[in-house]
């Protein structure tokens, strides 16, 4: 009977392998002493405090300098965070692991396998975040739309970003969305972002007069960036005429105030000129949507 013999060899082989792994792990880990543990705790605390402090300092300073520098300073925040975090990890690894070439090779496969299964999404987000630092599909201060969420990027973390929506909600989105979702960025690091304001009027409204009014509305708004072009797009619909006023605010942050200002003043002028709005029934609306 050959079975027991084979079983014996297999058992011996598994035993050897386990012993080998244990020895490798022993080689990999350095001696853990109380001082090292205290040092590690100090490193973690200092790194955490430093990240928070630098974050606060850079945000504080970015709100006090000229606006043209605001976004540049804020965009620097993720790099500073990454630098502090990397330094802390290197210091920690150096204290607890013998990072020789052999050891690094030995643990790479194991760690990769473990992470691949247990923290797949987390690691995917971190890698996307790192790539995002250089590819920059969005940066702090940009106004972006990912999926259904639109707002200003308030922070760029290791795993994800935080968006402030027009309703003042904070939405956390993992960076790995950049693999699968389309990201619409309105300003790509610049202060201005185009704002489109729609106006709906009856077919009878004099389109040329309306267009001139809309130009003037944009030219006289305190928020308008006059270095950039203003455009009015007119579209005929079944229910009336749609006018789209496209202009840039001086600071993209004022997007919603700007839209309100344009709407208020345009409607006031329309009232003075006697323009009327389309009068739609629910059925008309359904037909228009269809």
């Amino acid at each position, binding site marked *: 009977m050959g079975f027991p013999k084979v079983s014996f060899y297999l058992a011996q082989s598994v035993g050897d392998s386990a012993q080998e792994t244990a020895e490798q792990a022993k080689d990999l880990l350095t001696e853990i002493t109380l001082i090292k543990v205290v040092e590690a705790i100090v490193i973690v605390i200092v790194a955490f405090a430093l990240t928070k402090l630098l974050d606060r300092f850079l945000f504080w300073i970015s709100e006090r*300098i000229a606006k043209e520098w605001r976004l540049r300073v804020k965009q620097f925040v993720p790099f500073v965070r990454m630098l502090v975090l990397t330094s802390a990890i290197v210091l920690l690894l150096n204290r607890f692991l013998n990072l020789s070439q052999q050891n690094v090779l030995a643990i790479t496969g194991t760690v990769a396998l473990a992470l691949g299964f247990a923290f797949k999404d987390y690691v995917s987000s971190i890698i996307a975040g790192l790539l995002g630092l250089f590819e920059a599909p969005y940066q702090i201060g940009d106004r972006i739309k990912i999926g259904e969420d639109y707002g200003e990027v308030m922070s760029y973390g290791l795993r994800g970003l935080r968006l402030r929506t027009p309703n003042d909600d904070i939405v956390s989105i993992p960076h790995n969305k950049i693999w699968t979702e389309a990201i619409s960025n309105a300003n790509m690091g610049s202060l201005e972002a185009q704002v489109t304001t729609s106006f709906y009027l009856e077919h009878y409204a004099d389109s040329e007069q309306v267009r001139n009014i809309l130009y003037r509305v944009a*030219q*006289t708004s305190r928020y308008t960036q*006059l270095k950039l072009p203003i455009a009015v797009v007119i579209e005929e619909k079944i229910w009336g005429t749609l006018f789209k006023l496209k202009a840039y605010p001086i600071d993209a942050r004022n997007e919603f105030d700007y839209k309100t200002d344009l709407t208020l003043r345009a409607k006031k002028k329309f009232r003075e000129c006697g323009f009327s709005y389309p009068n739609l029934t629910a059925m008309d609306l359904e037909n228009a949507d269809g």
Partner: protein
Amino acid sequence: MIIADFIQDLADSSYQYKKLPIQSFQYGSRPENDKLRQCLQKQFGNRLPSPDSDRAIAVIPCLENCFLRSMNGLEAIDYLRDSLLTDTSIFWIIGVGQVGWQYLQAISALESYSDHVTHLEKLSGDQLSQWFEAVTNEIDIGFQSSALRSESSENDLNWRTQYFKFLSKESKGVDSVAVQLFLETLQIREEIDKEKENEESSEDDQPPILQAKLPINPSLPSLGGEDVYFLYSLLLHRTLTELQLAQSVGLSLLDVKDKIQALRKLRLVEQQDNLLRLNPAYYPAVYSRLDGDNFLV
């Protein structure tokens, strides 16, 4: 200087010139919004050629008085551009500030209608000194100060020359800024016990009654988010009433009153006869801030 040179050239030349009728925009302050166009039309629109000439010179010393950044406030500029500037029988001389010009250029492309655009040169220290002579000769003002000595690199120090050189640098050569800074640097001598004074010094040794400190541009105080829009509006129009300012920034009069009160408290805004204006001493700082904040200046 350029206009003076031009007139001198005319006088020196051997050609014969006849005097042209000159018509100047008479309004020292901004007319009401709905009358802006009417005022221009009244003054220049129905101009009849004078009996001995079919040409004329028209002068608008302060174009800022002809517009207000509001829905109806730019009609006069449209009228000027479309009906007046196209009249080739009139030679137009129009004065406007840098910020106002940039704004009107962006919305009306006024430069395309102008043959020549010239910027006033910055006033040098010598020019300022000459300009202030009437005042400084009349009143005894001391320019000597330890602060000025430490700022000056020259060994052979003429206090007055150095002071105005410094004033020119700080005011960026702008007349109104220089005047304001000059006034703000003046300090009056404190009265001391007369007997003690007689004991210590003779009449000739007494320091001047007025002493000019080192002129230094004030730095901008911390401003709220909306404040810069108010400052831009004041820089754009030079002077505004509260109501005009409200129309220019598109806010209610009540909102504007509160903000203006806060800016006046910071000495950024001055009020004279219901007219608001930016404190000229802050022009350089406000200009630089607006430039950094992405405004068209």
